[in-house]
Structure formats: C-alpha cells, structure tokens
C-alpha cells in the first residue's frame, strides 16, 4: 500500500494546450497542487479559467488531438498518470479516481438501467460476479440515500429527477472505493434545496468513507461550506491557494478580493452597490508572459506587464502547503481587510 504520509495526489507543472485551426489555446499553464488523504480541495474559477481542463488533463480524459499535455507530472500514490499506457490508465479511471460531472442527464447513458451502470465498474474493475455486483449496487444506492434501492436498479435515468440522478452519479463514482473523487460542478445544475441535499450527502460520505475530494465550482458559497483548502484559478493558472478560512478572511490576490465582493450576501448588511470587476477574462492564445489579470486589476503596475508572477508563500510555509499567491502586488495586512 502507498505511503500514508505522502499526498494521495500530486500535480507538478501541468501544462495543457489545445491546437485549433485558429492557433493554440494555452488552457492550463504550469499548474501545481497536491491533495492530502481525506481532504476536500475546492477549485474556484470562472468559465475558461482552466479548472475543468486541469482535472480532465490529469486523468487524461481530453481527446488528443486537439488537446496536448505538454508538460508535467501527475502522481497518484506515487505513480505518474501521464506516463501510463492506455491499459494501465483504464485500471485507474473509475477505480482509483472517480468522476462526477456537472450535468447528470448527459453523463448517464439513457438506454441502460441505473443498476447496469452502477454494476459496470464493479464488474470491470473488481471482477465481481453479477450477483455480487448487484448486492453492492444496492448498498451504494442506499448509501447515497435513494429509497427502495433494489427496485430502483431496474429504472432508467429519465425516471429519476435531477437530484436523484446526481446521487446515482455519486454512487457510480464511489463504486470501487476510489482514493480520489473529482467532482466537476456537481451541484451547479441543481436547485438550491436539492443542492443542499447533495452537499449534506457529500459531508456524510466523507465522514463514512474518508476519500479525498477535488470539488470544482464557481460558487464561493458552496466552497465556504464544504472545502478544507481552496485553489483559485484564473487564466489557466493558480493565482491563490489557502486553507478555506484563511482565503475568505485574508484574500491576497486582487482577483480573489474582488470576486468575494462581487457576490451579494444572504445575511448581514446589504451592500448599496456591487463591486464590479471591469473587463473580460483573457483569451489564452499565447503563453503568458505577463500577469493574466493585469487588464482588469486595480493594482496594476509596471512589473505586471513585464513578467507573469510566480506563486509566493505569504505565511512562511512552502508554496502549496500554506497560503500562497501569484501576484506582484503585496496586499496590506489582514486587519485592514474589511470582513463582515
């Protein structure tokens, strides 16, 4: 078994480029992070920030071409996923790494029963017999809170509501007891009351099963409620990374700071006017030679045009382990940051 002290997943210098007719798109630029056992890492960013492409790259789910992983290492329990043969990789996907996608309707196959789809990874990866897989499938549906599980095995996805389908997706992802669960905007397509059900379920499952989770979202509210650590992405790179409490209390990157103020609150004082981040996100047609946020940044100065800032630690701990930020500007000390 792998060393318990090592992170379950470690990504170093990942770089993904899409080759299109119009030229190259540098979607992921030198992304490094790690995931501890049992930890929930939240990944926040807007569309096009590279958060989904990063996660798809590390398990090589992107069609190549056009995707081209130029650089990097992805160590799962010490083994590099980027060097694996397709055959080896297949043994990882769905077994050691589970995936939950945003839209539960399009990610379930409409012509197979729910039971069939849950049993598929069990039979493929765990070599279970049909009877064994069926027993386990019932257990899994129970686990994710679907009542009357045995009967539901014969149902088709269209007979389930959105929230129920997402529960099924989670059951499939958990089927082989993965080390890492990657959830890509799993609650975005759901209504708030259903979203609350799923978040509650994930909290429960973490306590029961203790797997590590990467949770991709653009919703800071979701992150605040469930994450241990947060990574903020912008322009295909990590711009800030910190434990969740630290990030919200003491954000360093101008983008993070602005983002926290653009979202209205549900309680407490009501803001007269929302903070606006002017301009548009960058189009990543070339490798970044300057800070990707500079055109929208209120603290822009000369250094920002000259070099893309590297991540630097701000609390003395090594980059990636404590609180770090990729910015030339130094934010004033924490007490000056207003915090309602």
């Amino acid at each position, binding site marked *: 078994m792998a060393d318990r002290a090592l992170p379950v997943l470690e990504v170093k210098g990942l770089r993904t480029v899409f080759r299109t007719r119009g030229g190259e798109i540098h979607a992921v630029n030198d992304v490094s992070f790690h995931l501890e056992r049992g930890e929930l890492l939240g990944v926040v960013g*807007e*569309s096009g920030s590279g958060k989904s492409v990063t996660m798809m790259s590390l398990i090589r789910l992107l069609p190549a071409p056009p995707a081209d992983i130029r650089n990097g290492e992805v160590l799962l329990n010490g083994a590099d996923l980027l060097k694996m043969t397709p055959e080896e990789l297949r043994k990882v996907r769905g077994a050691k790494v589970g995936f939950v996608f945003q839209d539960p309707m399009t990610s379930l196959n409409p012509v197979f029963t729910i039971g069939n789809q849950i049993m598929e990874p069990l039979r493929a990866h765990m070599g279970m017999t049909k009877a064994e897989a069926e027993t386990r499938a019932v257990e899994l549906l129970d686990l994710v809170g679907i009542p009357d599980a045995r009967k539901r095995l014969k149902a088709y996805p269209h007979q389930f*509501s959105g*929230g*129920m389908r997402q529960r099924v997706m989670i059951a499939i992802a958990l089927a082989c007891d993965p080390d890492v669960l990657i959830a890509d905007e799993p609650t975005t397509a759901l*209504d*708030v*009351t*259903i*979203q*609350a*059900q799923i*978040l*509650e379920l994930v909290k429960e499952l973490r306590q029961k099963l203790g797997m590590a989770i990467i949770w991709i979202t*653009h*919703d*800071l*509210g*979701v*992150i*605040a*409620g469930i994450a241990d650590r947060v990574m903020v992405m912008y322009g295909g790179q990590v711009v800030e990374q910190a434990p*969740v*409490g630290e990030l*919200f*209390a003491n954000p360093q990157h101008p983008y993070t700071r*602005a*983002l*926290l103020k*653009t*979202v*209205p*609150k*549900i*309680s*407490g004082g*009501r*803001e007269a*006017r*929302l*903070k*606006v*981040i*002017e301009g*548009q*996100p960058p189009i990543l047609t070339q490798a970044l030679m300057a800070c990707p946020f500079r055109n929208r940044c209120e603290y822009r100065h000369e250094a920002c045009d000259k070099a893309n800032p590297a991540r630097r630690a701000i609390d003395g701990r090594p980059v990636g382990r404590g609180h770090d930020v990729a910015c030339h500007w130094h934010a004033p000390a924490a007490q000056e940051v207003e915090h*309602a």
Partner: protein
Amino acid sequence: MLDARPAPVTTAPLIQVEDLKMHFPIYSGILRRHTGDVKAVDGVSFFINAGETLGLVGESGCGKSTVGRALLRLYEPTAGRVIIDGEDVARLSPEALRKKRPTMQMVFQDPQASLNPRMTLSRIIGEPLDEHTDWTDKKKQDWIYELMDSVGLNRRFANRFPHEFSGGQRQRIGIARALALNPKFIVCDEPIAALDVSIQAQVVNLLEDLQDRLGLTYLFISHDLSMVRHIADRVAVMYLGKIAELSPRDDLYARPLHPYAEALLSAVNEPDPVIAAKRRRIILKGDVPSPANPPLGCNFCTRCPRVMDICRAVKPDLIEVEAGRFVACHLYPTTAAAGSTGAPEATERNQQGVTR
C-alpha cells in the same frame, strides 16, 4: 441621453395581477384527447408599484418564468387579469395589444439565443423602432447610439454581430433593445443566470442605474436569492405554480414566514466559512411534485417539515398576516393548536431566519 422621468407619485400600482392562471393542456392516447393540464401558474395575485422592483424567486419548474411571459402576454393566460397601467393586458384585442407593447418589455435569460445571429447590433436594437415608430433613419440611428451609450456599449460596435461579443456585452444588447421604446415596465427573466460571477455584478449595477435614471419598474425573476436580496424591494416566493410568500425584502430575509421560504433561504450557501459553519440548514426531503398532478391540499404538504392534517386537504389562501406580508400557509393566522407533527424541530426552526 434617455429622458429622465420624474419619480412617479401615483398611488395605484403600475401592475396589478389578479388570480392569474396559465395551464398547458396535455394530450395523450391515440386520439390525442385532452387528458389533463400542467398547471404551471395556478392562481397568482400580486401588484408592483411604479419604480419598484419585485423579485420573483423559486426553483426550476415553479412557474416563475411562465408568470413573466403570461404578464406580457407572450402566452395567452388561461384565466385572470393582468392590469398594466390601467389596461387589462390579458383581454386586449390584438391591435390594442400591439399599441401597448412599447410600454412593457422583456430581457431574456440567454443572451445567445435571444439575439438574431444574422442581424447587426444596430439592427437588433433598432428593430422595435421599425415596428412601432415612423421615425426617419437618421433619428433612429441617433437614438440607437444613445441607447448604446446608456448601456455601456461602444458606438463603434454598431455594425458588429452578436457572436463578436461576450456574454455580458450580449446581455447589454438585450437590455438596450428592451429600452428602445421607452418602456415603463421590464420583465427581467433570469438576466444574469448565464453569466460568470464577475460579469453578473456589471449587469445588475447597470439595471439599477437605469431604474434610478428612468424610473423603470422591474419584475426580476431569478433563482439566485442573494442577488434578489440585493436588487428587489419586495420578493415573491413561488412554489409549484403558487405564491407561498410575498413580503418586503428585509422582512423576508430576516424572518421568512412560510416554511418553504424558510427552507429555501436556509439552503443558500453563504460565501463566508465562519457564517456557513454557524448556520443551521433545513434539508427538505424529496422532490417537487409534478405540476400536472399537484397535491390535493397545500402544494408544499409533501415536503413541508411542519405539515398538519389540514394541509393535506385544504389549499391555503394567500392572506396578509402582517402589514405588507402575504403568506399562503395554514400556520397563519390561526397558528398553534392544530396538531403539528415534529414539534421540537419546529421551535428550533423558528430561529432559523435570524441565525447568522
């Protein structure tokens, strides 16, 4: 610049909706017989004062968009009255309706789908003028430029096509088009739902600025309860085709009265880990029933944590239980007494709204 209108001083509401119903028929079987109705909107009443923003919130399928569309008669309402500025829009003749259209406009959710990809920006914004005015081309073009200025679009973009713009800019085009005929009332149907977080604030601020300047009245339809808290003066919470609660904004968010409003607000994720850790959530069991086959009693009785026997048998009316606060729930005003299930939970939940 667009003409600034003096703040209206009339006391009668600009919009008065009475018992609006919008049923969509279901046909089934070989003979395509009419076998039932999807009661998307089933008896909704509210008013909106001039210059006010009414937020309309609820989950998908609750009928909030249908209300918006029926109000502007983009659907033919099944029953009810929709009085906009003194005229019942639901009953206007086609010709009278056409004359009425300039006063009431709509901003749609998906700026990609609601703009014709083959028309330039200038033609999109100018189309309402071609339909409803006999202005010269010069006058139209000047007005289009003014509209573009007021929504923050550069005049140089007038001959470009929608695909050349980002989502936020496209939404500005949609807003400029809605403003072209100097409307009094605009239905904003999830105008920010398709936009990224950092762009949402830009569009919401624009809508607020325009309202201040032009004295516009909005129906702001959204599922984003935090944003509605920011923009609306009063808020109506819909569930399965009916209004569960309609209250002034601050009252609703501080102390929701209807159990559904309470659960809905508690489910919103607060972007602050300190508050998030303290908040107690009400997790509703199950899903929303089908609007084709709603429960016999209160529409919320299948999921309500405080359900009573009467709830399963009798539909509650929307009544004013406190000044300006309307609730459709048997807990009010003859509360207490009636055999409430799960009493200990209920007391705990009473503090929910003020838990911070």
